[in-house]
């Protein structure tokens, strides 16, 4: 029962937050200097064409009226008039979403599969050579920007070795390099975080209690320490979702990945404000949904929250 009300409360809390965020996005786009209609029709257009565009975009109406119709439109799935798609861009954004989601999910999966065990191993072998080696890797990965790593991966694995496709989406193998480029930094962050938290947990009293029961090292780590160490680690992964969204934009461009990030960069290049705004709204919705999932995971891992 408390679990259900916990979830319901958080779902309800999303509504006012979403409302506020969408309002702020609207105001930011209104504050952008220059006339949207002029930018969209191009430099060679006549005044009549510009005026027609203003009417089409609703820019001739008072700002409050624009805001109200914008909000009503969003609720009904109408994101406005995009010059790229000559109409409502939402279906096109949603069509690109699976590619971006696939990239993000595989990056998270790789992070969990590599980052968490690396942190655990480093902590368990604290201050020995394997710890120093892993910590060295972590520092190196944190220092490397993802666009540089992406370009190097393309240069070596695709161009020189010819092992992997360099761009586009041609089956699962295409996912490997973009995933590596996107996940590298997150793997390093999570490994470092996990190591620190594990070191802290390993010093706690309950570990000594577990030893006093006769449990052995591996059992203590797996059965007792890991779960407690995962609580802050899940937080870090959740907080890094924003980074993944931003990072995926760059990585998608490098690998010509047919995702939302690639569409976003195109939209900026085309001065398609409606499309940019629509993508930002979709990102915000996605981010809030991810936060909801992360909070659900807390409940699963940390029993102390269930009765709070």
């Amino acid at each position, binding site marked *: 029962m408390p679990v259900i009300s916990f979830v319901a409360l958080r779902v309800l809390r999303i509504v006012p937050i979403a409302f506020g965020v969408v309002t702020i996005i609207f105001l930011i786009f209104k504050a952008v200097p220059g006339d949207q209609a002029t930018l969209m029709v191009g430099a060679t257009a006549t005044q009549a064409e510009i005026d027609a565009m203003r009417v089409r975009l609703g820019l001739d109406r008072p700002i409050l009226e624009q805001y109200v119709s914008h909000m009503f439109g969003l609720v009904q799935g109408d994101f406005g008039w995009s010059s790229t798609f000559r109409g409502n861009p939402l279906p096109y954004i949603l069509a690109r979403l699976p590619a971006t989601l696939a990239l993000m999910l595989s990056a998270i999966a790789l992070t969990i599969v590599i980052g968490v065990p690396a942190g655990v191993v480093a902590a368990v072998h604290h201050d020995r050579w394997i710890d120093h080696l892993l910590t060295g890797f972590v520092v190196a990965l944190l220092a490397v920007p993802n666009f540089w790593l992406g370009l190097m991966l393309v240069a070596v694995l695709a161009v020189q070795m010819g092992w992997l496709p360099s761009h586009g989406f041609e089956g699962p193998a295409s996912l490997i390099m973009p995933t590596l480029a996107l996940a590298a930094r997150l793997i390093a962050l999570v490994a470092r975080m996990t190591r620190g938290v594990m070191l802290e947990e390993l010093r706690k009293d309950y570990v000594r*209690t577990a030893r006093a*029961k*006769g449990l052995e090292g591996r059992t203590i780590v797996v059965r007792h320490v890991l779960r407690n160490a995962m609580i802050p680690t899940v937080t870090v992964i959740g907080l890094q979702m924003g980074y993944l969204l931003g990072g995926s934009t760059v990585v998608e461009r490098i690998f010509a990945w047919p995702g939302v990030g690639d569409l976003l960069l195109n939209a900026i290049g085309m001065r398609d404000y409606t499309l940019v705004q629509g993508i930002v709204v979709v990102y915000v919705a996605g981010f809030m949904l991810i936060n909801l999932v992360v909070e659900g995971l807390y409940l699963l891992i940390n029993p102390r929250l269930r009765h709070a």
Partner: protein
Amino acid sequence: MNVATEPVLAVQGLTTGFDTARGRLVAVNDLSFSLARGETLAIVGESGCGKSVAALSIMRLLETPPALILGGTIRFAGRDLAQADEATMSGLRGAKLSMIFQEPMTALNPSMKVGLQIAEPLMRHRGLTREAALARAVEMLDLVRIPEAARRAEDYPHRMSGGMRQRVMIAMALACEPDLLIADEPTTALDVTIQAQVLEILRALQARMGAAVILITHDLGVVAEVADRVVVMYAGHKVEEADVASLFARPRHPYTHGLMRSVPRVNAPGRASGGRVRLPEIAGIVPALDQRPPGCPFVPRCPLASARCAEMPPLAEHSPGHWAACWHSDAVGQAAGAGHA
């Protein structure tokens, strides 16, 4: 020595130190004592006197490095624990040799149900299945008088009070019916009324299972209530040992005497007239590990100290079973402590 009187535990010359940046510091110095089956031995002293380090040395739960056992033997279950490897120790811990800790709020794993935490040693040492061990865990919770044991076994530690958690710790430590239980300040973190309950449960289970108990405490009230014999430690040394009656009747070391004087009493002289009486205390603190004087370590705080105390006094037997390490043990409680002993 025949089987009946052979001690459960015999510690001989135990010396434990820590390697630090300031060199090697000795926390437990040449400690010897033994413990018969079913007996309760209290180890008494202020914080920093080495009693917890001694207990953790016996359990071999000290981190090495920096801690290491520098000398002595710990005879238990036919072995010398001072020389035992980790595999041997983990086979003994929780099975024949158990420990409960001071802080019941942090000693349990916050993200594991208490039933499973009690069941773990049974699965590890008795080879019980998870189901059988969990069923036994509920019985143990019942034994430590936790109401609705079956439902409580499904709770996480944060749902329990300090006293309940300490009872869970006792249930866990005694699940495999060990020969020796070390209780390190088991009631210090608890309310006075809860303290009495927990001690009573501990005593009842000890009687039922026949375990020997080492009770580490600084609370002489607890000692008087539950101990058979007492070892008084100061700055890593055993300074006095006696059965509980003769220790309280006539302490032979000025440190023991000071500890007794500093216990508040309702009928203290001066109280009857409604006046406030300042509680006698032992001036000063236990010297840090790297600041211990040569000779008797109690000299800086001792009312009886003399030139002779620059030499470490040996343990001498004053009456059968009553040992003390003090050159002036005959004078203890005679002059300075008049009206109290």
